[in-house]
Structures are given as structure tokens and as C-alpha cells.
């Protein structure tokens, strides 16, 4: 029996089905989790998918964070349950204080959808072991509130502990000016941070969408996102 990876559907989640597909393509079994259920159906790991849960009203992730399912996830994550938060999921994780810092509106004030180049800074987390440290990958990015902020002390701590997992780097796309006026950092995130992890590397959040980089025909036409899901699968199988 393969590993079971839960994907939470909040009201307004959008990329839940796509995330389930990515999990399937990686060889694991996706399990749908419902925001009103505290029960995690014995999954081995959880993905909080992208979307606009509760319409991003108040602040992105601020309302979902109080859902019944999050109560269990917060407790379990503290005792080691691997959790990946993608985009809105990352926002939920910061609102839930499972990851430090906060997400704010993009500095250019627009929604942005583009192919984004990232550098993998930490390949030792539960979700990035199949990458090589320093590897550069292309993952689609699409969000309104992607600006990662934290105070300088927190940022220094994240850097010192190697907890910055992904950074935005310059790629052909923005050099070519596809989104004019927006440089390699697509949202004004401090220190070009695209994703971070908790102390143990079990909880990871990032703004770009690996589930939209798993097939050559759709998404960004690459498979740079698959290692997220194969990484966790290997970890779970060997555990």
C-alpha cells in the first residue's frame, strides 16, 4: 500500500484537484480532506492547496486557519506530520503560526501569473529531498498576496538555520519582460524568499505552484514540480 497524502479542501480552494492529480502522478494516493472535519483519515502527510479560501477576505488564509481541520493539522504538525502549503496553503500556515512571518499583497498591487524561476536552497526538508541544493527550477506562480515579510531578526534566524527553502531568481521570462516592471522577485518578498520551512523541515510553505509543473502538456509544460511529491513519498515509504 502506498502512502496516503491528504489534500484539504477549504471553501474557495481551487488547486485541490490539481494537487490530487500531482500526488497521483508521483505514485502516492491522494486523500480528500474537508475543512469541517477534524478527522485526517490517517493520512501520512497533508497538502494545503492553492486557491482563495474564503475569498481571501480579511487576509489570505486568515479565516481558514480557524477551521476544524486546521485544529488537528496544527496539533499534528507540531508532532511531526509533514505539511506542504502551496500559495494559499502557505498563507494559511503563516496565519496559523506554523511558519513564521506573514504574507502581504504583491508590491506591484496586481495579481501575477507567470512561470517563475526558483533556486532550491534547502534540499533536506521532507518535501525537497529529491532536489539538489542550489538546483534551479521553473514553477508557475500565481497569486495576489505573495509578499513574504518578517522582521529582520526572524529573517536572520531563517537564514542562519537554513530555513529559507526557495528563493526567486532571475529567469528568461522576466528578463524578456513578460510582466513588465516586475523583476525576478515577483511580489516584493523580503530577501527574495519564495518558501520556508519549520525547525524540523517537516512543514514547508511556498508561493509558487509545483502541482502545475507535473505534465508536459499543461501547466508550464515542465515536470519540475514532481520532486515535491516524490520527495515526500520516499520519505514516507522509508519511514
Amino acid at each position, binding site marked *: 500500500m502506498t502512502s496516503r497524502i491528504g489534500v484539504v479542501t477549504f471553501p474557495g480552494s481551487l488547486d485541490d484537484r490539481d494537487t490530487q492529480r500531482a500526488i497521483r502522478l508521483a505514485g502516492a494516493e491522494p486523500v480528500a480532506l474537508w475543512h469541517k472535519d477534524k478527522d485526517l483519515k490517517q493520512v501520512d502527510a497533508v497538502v494545503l492547496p492553492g486557491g482563495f479560501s*474564503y*475569498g481571501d*477576505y*480579511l487576509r489570505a488564509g486568515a*479565516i481558514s486557519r*480557524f*477551521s476544524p481541520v486546521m485544529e488537528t493539522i496544527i496539533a499534528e504538525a507540531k508532532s511531526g506530520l509533514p505539511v506542504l502549503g502551496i500559495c494559499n496553503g502557505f498563507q494559511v500556515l503563516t496565519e496559523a503560526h506554523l511558519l513564521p512571518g506573514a504574507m502581504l499583497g504583491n508590491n506591484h498591487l496586481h495579481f501575477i501569473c507567470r512561470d517563475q524561476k526558483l533556486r532550491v536552497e534547502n534540499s533536506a526538508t521532507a518535501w525537497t529531498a529529491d532536489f539538489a541544493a542550489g538546483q534551479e527550477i521553473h514553477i508557475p506562480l500565481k497569486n495576489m498576496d505573495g509578499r513574504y515579510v518578517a522582521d529582520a531578526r526572524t529573517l536572520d534566524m531563517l537564514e542562519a538555520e537554513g530555513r529559507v527553502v526557495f528563493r526567486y531568481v532571475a529567469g528568461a521570462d522576466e528578463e524578456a519582460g513578460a510582466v513588465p516592471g516586475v523583476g525576478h522577485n515577483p511580489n516584493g518578498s523580503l530577501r527574495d524568499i519564495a518558501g520556508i520551512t519549520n525547525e524540523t523541515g517537516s512543514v514547508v510553505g511556498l508561493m509558487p505552484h509545483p502541482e502545475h509543473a507535473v505534465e508536459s502538456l499543461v501547466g508550464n509544460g515542465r515536470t519540475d514540480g514532481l520532486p515535491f511529491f516524490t520527495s515526500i513519498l520516499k520519505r514516507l515509504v522509508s519511514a
Partner: protein
Amino acid sequence: MARVVVDVMLKPEILDPQGQAVQRALPRLGFEGISDVRQGKRFELEVDGPVDDAALARIHELAETFLANTVIENFTVKVEEEK
């Protein structure tokens, strides 16, 4: 230097999805007894020079033409006490 605050709120008859979402979340957080929530915008303007009637009139105009869309929003202009 003085601070002028412009509050912009959706008109009462206009749907406020954000305020509604907040209100609907309250019981789950254990907050009862709040019968309505409206969410609007607050602009804090730092004004050089004195905030006399002329300055206020201009800020009023700014609010009316730019900070608010009076088709759907109301606004108020207030001078904040110096700190």
C-alpha cells in the same frame, strides 16, 4: 504636520462580502453578539502645512474623486489630533 484620516466604507445598501465573511467566521471563533460587520478602508494622509478649511476642502475633493467611488462608497474626512 498633521494627519487627516479618510474613512471609506461601502454604502449600507451595497453588499460587503468581506465584512460578511468576517461576521460569519465569528461564532466559530467563539464570538457571539456581533450582529453586523462592515469592512472598509482607512487612509492616513500626512499633510504638510496647516490643515485649514481650504486644505480640508481639497482633501474632501480628493476623497470624492479618487479615494472613494461614490457610486458604491461613502467617505468621511477627519483631522486627527496631533500626537
